[in-house]
């Protein structure tokens, strides 16, 4: 951080102010056209931004207290902050610095705006979902239930069975493909696989469901529904995620480890199994957990391959099963009487689903923290 030179023309009294630049701001040189123009121009006091922000928030709070909606209060506060800081900075620091402050305000507000949906979604689901978060909800199925009561016991098991089967299919295929890409893959085949794994990431989930249906219809005839079809559809969505994350982790394994192993005449496959995979296992487990979290909430493919049922069915090879996501959708889309009972169940199932996903996400973080290979000692 350089100190702006003291200009004799402006005198030491003014240069004191220019010395106090905000710590994160670089003193930009200003256009100098005449010798008489001071080399440095003024800058806002160090806490200018914070003061204006405080004022703007105060204004927003005052408007909110005066009966305006919270949304409008926040919007007006943001606009007020942007305008005030821009005009103030423009009068003191010039247009370039003023525009810089303007962009800072806009970018920061954009970030805050993006957090609103996240907060709103979580708040809505928790608020409405708690209505039916009781023991009956977890221990009963919907068999014979009309109106109030009933639970999601059958859907919880359906979700767990179908997702576990999907993981059972995707993890070996995904991991072996990643091993191929990192350890063996050369040339056109490896490039093609890399490219199509990327493309596969973008397959719409409903298309994966249609594929599973088309595949099973050939063997079982039209109208077939079974849990395993859902697992196949989910594994189409899951495989590319597993490949991608495993590949990233295997690439992080230092080559020295492989070379040391080869130097001891260890065969390549044993090197991979005993050296490379154990080193990367924490990252791979994290990736697999995140992949499970990604597919456990899928609705569309399960809706058209597994369907929905009201009673327990724990056999994934025989007929319809219930899953949490489809349960939530069907309760919401085709409510009976009283409607509130159906909506409450839909929101409670959604809350349970979001809890499962969040726990899986946190679990993934924990795995990567706890089982990360020690770099020293």
């Amino acid at each position, binding site marked *: 951080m350089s100190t702006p030179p003291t200009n004799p023309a402006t005198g030491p009294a003014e240069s004191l102010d220019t010395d106090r630049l905000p710590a994160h701001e670089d003193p930009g040189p200003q256009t100098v056209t005449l010798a008489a123009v001071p080399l440095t121009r003024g800058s806002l006091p160090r806490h200018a931004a914070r003061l204006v922000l405080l004022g703007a928030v105060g204004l927003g709070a005052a408007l909110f207290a005066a009966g305006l909606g919270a949304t409008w209060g926040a919007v007006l506060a943001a606009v007020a902050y942007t305008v005030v800081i821009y005009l103030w900075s423009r009068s003191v620091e010039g247009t370039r610095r003023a525009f810089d402050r303007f962009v800072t305000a806009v970018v920061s507000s954009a970030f805050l705006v993006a957090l609103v949906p996240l907060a709103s979604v979580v708040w809505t689901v928790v608020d409405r979902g708690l209505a039916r978060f009781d023991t009956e909800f977890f221990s009963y199925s919907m068999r014979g239930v009309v109106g109030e009561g009933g639970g999601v016991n059958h859907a919880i098991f359906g979700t767990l069975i179908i997702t576990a089967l999907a993981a059972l299919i995707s993890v070996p295929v995904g991991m072996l493909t990643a091993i191929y*890409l990192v350890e063996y893959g050369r040339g056109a085949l490896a490039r093609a696989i890399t490219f199509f794994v990327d493309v596969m990431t973008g397959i719409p989930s409903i298309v994966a469901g249609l594929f599973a249906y088309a595949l099973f219809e050939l063997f079982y005839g039209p109208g077939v529904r079974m849990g395993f079809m859902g697992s196949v559809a989910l594994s189409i969505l899951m495989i590319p995620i597993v490949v991608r994350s495993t590949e990233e982790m295997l690439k992080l394994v230092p080559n020295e480890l492989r070379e040391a192993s080869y130097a001891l005449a260890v065969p390549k496959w044993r090197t991979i199994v005993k050296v490379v995979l154990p080193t990367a296992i924490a990252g791979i487990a994290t990736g697999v957990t995140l992949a499970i979290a990604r597919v456990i909430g899928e609705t569309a493919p399960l809706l058209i391959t597994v369907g929905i049922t009201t009673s327990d069915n724990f056999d994934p090879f025989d007929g319809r099963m219930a899953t949490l996501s489809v349960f939530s959708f069907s309760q*919401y889309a085709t409510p009976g009487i009283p409607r509130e009972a159906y909506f409450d169940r839909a929101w409670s199932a959604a809350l349970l689903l979001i809890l499962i996903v969040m726990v899986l996400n946190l679990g993934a973080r924990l795995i990567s923290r706890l089982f990360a290979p020690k770099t020293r000692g």
Partner: protein
Amino acid sequence: MPSTTEKTPRRGTVQRPGDRVFAGASTGAGITILAILAGVAAFLVIEAWPALWASDEEMPDGEGLVLYVWPLLFGTLISATFALLIATPFAVAIALFISHYAPRRVAVTLGYLIDLLAAVPSIIFGLWGAAELAPLTVEPTQWLADNLGFIPLFEGPASATGRTMLVASMVLAVMILPITTAVVREAFLQTPRLHEEASLALGATRWEMIRMAVLPFGRSAIIGGAMLGLGRALGETMAVAIVLSGSAGVTFNIIGSGNPSSIAANIALRFPESSGLDINVLIASGLVLFAVTLFVNMGARAVINRRRDFSGAN
């Protein structure tokens, strides 16, 4: 990168059976993935085949496949396009905030917060859009219809329930925000440090540094990330299925109560009750969706990979 430094075994190395099995298994897994993708295309074509050759009278609405799919394709494209228009500026701003504005200590956590949006299941976004967001938009859309009705998009009459194309697009925008942000953020973080420091040293303000060093470097990532988001939005099912009550045909009016449904939502809503040729028709529409998303995603990957080749950051 292992591929550049790893020594390939010299010729004459003993090939143990274990090696052969392992190499075969992993190569086989790779080929399986290619086979699955080819299988997806092949089975969809097989199942869609009867619908492609059926006469117009046999169609669900008796007008032929093209006229059946077109309004749905239009609904898909228009919802995804508006989602893209809403999400991309936010994604760029958020990526900039995380990479260049936020204090470094909290930047990772903030990025994680945005990634959490991607973890929320789509059904929950759908429920949220229909129950929370839709009622909020009733008054603003009424205002739009009254005051800006001369623009075809806001022609009105505004929907009384708020379950409009606008809300569907907003929900889709929230859903594609994380993936676009992630791609753009990665590119911004890779901006060569020397470029940034050079422009700061020449006296640029932070915004001028971003405009001259960061944005040109990340331009293709912005395009690629936006296209990836577009691919997501095109195929997103539940949010549209829950928010929209798709009924009307092609219309640009995004705040009315009659909206075209999207391909994916139409499949999800009709498939459970369909049988016979209707199934084939739905699968044919799914094939169209598959082709469109495949095209968009391949384009996006090509743009992103081209940047990787020429970025000079590696």
